[in-house]
């Protein structure tokens, strides 16, 4: 009996789903055998080095590679001239334009040329001999600078989209999005309390520990094999093909283990350079980024400026909300402001709303997704103002949120989703309200802050192939790189479907020629969408298994039921046949058993997270120390609870780093001053407490196991939770990131009338 994948689940207990087995790829990762991108070597392999712009903004007058080509060990040099020009209609994320600078460099670190030589040292020495003549141009680094009248332009033809009248002049504003509902003025007039504040955030990086790396091996027949670390090797294939002007069939991309991505590896940086160098040199070419390159030239998340105004009645009802958001997008247009606008009021049912957002190009690396992209900055603004309202009307901040929280059936225009389906915001708020950590007494200089966060989650295309082995095991091949335990989640769902022990399932990430097209591992989609593909393939296999049992029993397939991993004869005329007994006879019943599930998934469920931060501020140095942290997140269903907790904890830790210390620091020339882990300060183990997790499970009715996706939303609440906790501890409202000791002490000094 096949059950439609889309059937609504009832929350129930499963045999495998919800258990915590050791991940299948774990052993290789604790004994050093797992192969990450930089771990690959090939016979005759040579090494690439990328020459990058030292300037934030300049015209390229000439690139002379003559001397470099004659340097010892050099096998190939590539410049922009080796690649077709970007398509005129090239849209976000402008990979072809970004990947190698043509007429202009638009940020420090942009690629200008690349060299391949026998050794890395030779390649580096040769790259230094490429003579590039620049004409330096004035640059802009922030939305304020970029939006100012007369600002230097990054793109001479960039006309703002989305304005009521199309401007005639180019500017650095790529797009404006606007949304309104209700009567804003009436809404604010109805309010007893109205607060409006401006917030700024800095550029921060995903900070994955593994730098980008790849090996490309281009053969004489015009095909190339690429071994690399990415969040989606099918994306690498199509993006590299586009950049090279090749057919996708000319490229095979083999996914290495990926050492973290968080959105940062949803695009490419090196692969076309390596393919081209390999083609020219007729040798495999490896390129590994240095950490400095990762910071300077791969996509961080935007710096922003956001104004939010919210009105509420004394009873806590929100009456109106207005948001103005400007998001940097780096050197080429993005759609980060739009996403921020969609998220800014999403958790709340506010009748009168106006949201205006802007995408602004600046002379910094092109922004790319970072865990719930754009949402944390928007939440910083909204959740801080909500906290202020709660204090003003003397209402518990969780109760205020519960009063206004969206739930199933609520018509929420601003999130752009429209009517919410079954969601778990209220459940996360209740979980926090009822948590013992919400009531722990605080000492002097200590404060508690709460905040909530929303993220859409996305679905997209996934494929899975499940092969049964002759001794009754299953190999589950998917196209989704495993960043944080997705293999074991796939295996758990397959175990549940097939009724065999999860350890008898081998989950594999297949290359671009071993499995069907699969979109990038992003948007918290893998357990949701790729999981659906696995379930679909398994259900097809169960049908096949029933057919084989029917052949073995010489009965009608209708008389065979599949229960708990075994075929049962409906009349109990035969003893049940296990999966292994059927696969053992596969040759006699029609051949190997395998099935494929492919789909463009729909119905991804929005995710919510509510968090409590307790911290202590040293009033003399301004340093905030996190004492306790508690996070409640709606996972839908936790397939492997340990890895769900891991995602929740990881999101919180990144949010804490963002809130307190992380930022890109540029000098006046637009040169990044802290492109390393010494001064780009991500949290270390001693900075953090244990992070308590509460997994809320409001099953997503659109997934066979109720999965919602858990990767991203955890990073949304920490910034405002920390800001609110600092206020609780000190009375200080901080609205600019990072809330570093310097900034806290400045605030305290002002409060105390010092300095």
């Amino acid at each position: 009996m096949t059950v439609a994948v889309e059937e609504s689940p009832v929350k129930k207990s499963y045999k495998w789903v919800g258990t915590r087995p050791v991940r299948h790829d774990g052993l290789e990762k604790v004994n050093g055998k797992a192969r990450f991108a930089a771990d690959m070597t090939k016979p005759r392999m040579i090494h690439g080095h990328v020459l990058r712009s030292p300037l934030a903004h300049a015209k390229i007058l000439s690139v002379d590679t003559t001397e470099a080509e004659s340097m010892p060990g050099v096998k190939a040099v590539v410049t922009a001239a080796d690649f077709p020009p970007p398509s005129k209609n090239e849209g976000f994320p402008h990979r072809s334009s970004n990947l190698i600078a043509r007429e202009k460099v638009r940020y420090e670190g942009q690629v200008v040329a690349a060299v391949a030589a026998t050794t890395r040292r030779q390649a580096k020495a040769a790259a230094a001999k490429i003579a590039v003549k620049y004409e330096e141009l004035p640059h802009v680094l922030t939305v304020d600078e970029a939006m100012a009248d007369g600002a230097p332009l990054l793109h001479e033809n960039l006309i703002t989209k989305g304005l009521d009248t199309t401007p005639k002049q180019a500017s650095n504003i790529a797009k404006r999005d606007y949304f309104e509902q209700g009567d804003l003025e009436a809404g604010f007039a109805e309010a007893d309390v109205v607060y409006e504040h401006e917030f700024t955030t800095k550029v921060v990086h995903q900070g994955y520990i593994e730098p980008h790396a790849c090996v490309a091996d281009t053969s004489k027949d015009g095909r190339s094999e690429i071994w690399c670390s990415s969040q989606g090797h099918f994306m690498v294939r199509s993006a590299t093909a586009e950049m090279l002007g090749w057919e996708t069939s000319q490229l095979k991309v083999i996914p290495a283990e990926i050492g973290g991505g968080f959105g940062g590896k949803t695009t490419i940086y090196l692969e076309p350079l390596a393919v081209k160098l390999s083609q020219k040199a007729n040798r495999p070419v490896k390129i590994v980024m240095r950490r400095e390159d990762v910071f300077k030239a791969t996509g961080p998340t935007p710096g922003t400026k956001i104004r939010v105004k919210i009105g509420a009645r004394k009873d806590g009802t929100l009456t109106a909300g207005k948001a103005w958001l400007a998001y940097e997008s780096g050197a080429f247009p993005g759609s980060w402001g739009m996403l921020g606008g969609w998220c800014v009021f999403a958790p709340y049912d506010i009748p009168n709303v106006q949201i205006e957002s802007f995408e602004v190009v600046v002379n910094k690396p092109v922004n790319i997704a970072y865990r719930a992209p754009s949402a944390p900055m928007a939440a910083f603004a909204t959740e801080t103002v909500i906290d202020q309202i709660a204090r003003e009307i003397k209402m518990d901040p969780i109760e205020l949120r519960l009063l206004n929280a969206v739930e199933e059936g609520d018509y929420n225009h601003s999130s752009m989703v429209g009517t919410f389906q079954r969601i778990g915001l209220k459940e996360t708020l209740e979980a926090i309200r009822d948590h013992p950590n919400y009531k722990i007494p605080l000492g002097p200089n200590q404060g508690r802050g709460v905040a909530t966060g929303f993220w859409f989650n996305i679905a997209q295309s996934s494929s899975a192939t499940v092969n049964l082995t002759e001794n009754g095991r299953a190999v589950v091949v998917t196209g989704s790189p495993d960043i944080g335990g997705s293999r074991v989640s796939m295996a758990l769902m397959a175990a549940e479907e097939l009724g065999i022990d999860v350890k008898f399932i081998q989950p594999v990430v297949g290359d671009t020629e071993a499995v069907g097209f699969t979109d990038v591992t992003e948007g918290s989609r893998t357990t949701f969408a790729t999981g659906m593909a696995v379930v679909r393939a398994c259900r097809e296999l169960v049908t096949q298994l029933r057919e084989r049992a029917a052949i073995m029993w010489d009965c009608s397939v209708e008389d065979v039921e599949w229960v708990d991993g075994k075929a049962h004869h409906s009349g109990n005329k035969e003893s049940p046949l296990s999966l292994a007994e059927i696969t053992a006879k596969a040759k006699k019943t029609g051949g190997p058993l395998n099935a494929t599930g492919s789909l463009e998934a729909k119905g991804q469920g929005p995710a919510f997270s509510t968090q409590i931060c307790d911290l202590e501020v040293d009033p003399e140095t301004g340093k905030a120390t996190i004492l306790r942290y508690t996070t409640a997140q709606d996972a839908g269903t936790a397939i492997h609870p340990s890895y769900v907790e891991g995602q929740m904890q990881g999101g919180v830790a990144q949010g804490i780093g963002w809130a307190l210390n992380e930022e890109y620091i540029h000098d006046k020339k637009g040169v990044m001053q802290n492109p390393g882990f010494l001064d780009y300060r991500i949290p270390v183990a001693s900075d953090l407490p244990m992070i308590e997790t509460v997994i809320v499970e409001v099953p997503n009715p659109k997934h066979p196991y109720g999965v919602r996706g858990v990767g991203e939303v955890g990073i949304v609440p920490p910034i405002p939770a920390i800001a609110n906790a600092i206020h609780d501890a000190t009375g200080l409202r901080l609205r600019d990131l990072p809330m570093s000791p310097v900034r806290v002490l400045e605030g305290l000094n002002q409060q105390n009338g010092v300095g």
Partner: protein
Amino acid sequence: MNRTHVTCMINDDETEFLCDNDESLLDALRDEVGLTGAKEGCGTGDCGACSIILNGQLICACLAFAPEANGGTIETVEGMADGDRLHPLQTSFLEEASLQCGVCTPGFLMAAKALLENNPDPTETEVRYAIAGNLCRCTGYDKIVRAVLGAAAQMRKNPIEGARP
């Protein structure tokens, strides 16, 4: 080319390799010896992904020059298990789900091993400070700290057998 010949013990194997004098020990292990368990996350000693034990001392292999290893003893993650028997830290990392992407894991295992050899009964705070030179961006450290504490307890209870199948 004028390369230096280095002889050392790596994970109990007498090993010889050729290297450049300014090559880092990390590059030599990865490129000359073929042990890619230690990873380069930063190349400046700030992330700990290349942690190894040289002559009994936990170091970042990216900050040592390869010729320094001559005559020395090196332990890397590849030598942590005793044949098929995993080190209790490895087992504990697996059971506690202490790795997500896994790229920092070899470094954490080496740092934790060095810690437990000096301090078999560390507090949570001691664990956190001992692994502060190792960056993990995925886990928020919670499950890593739990795994180290768990392995320490296991090793105190069972110091001789230690590793389990």
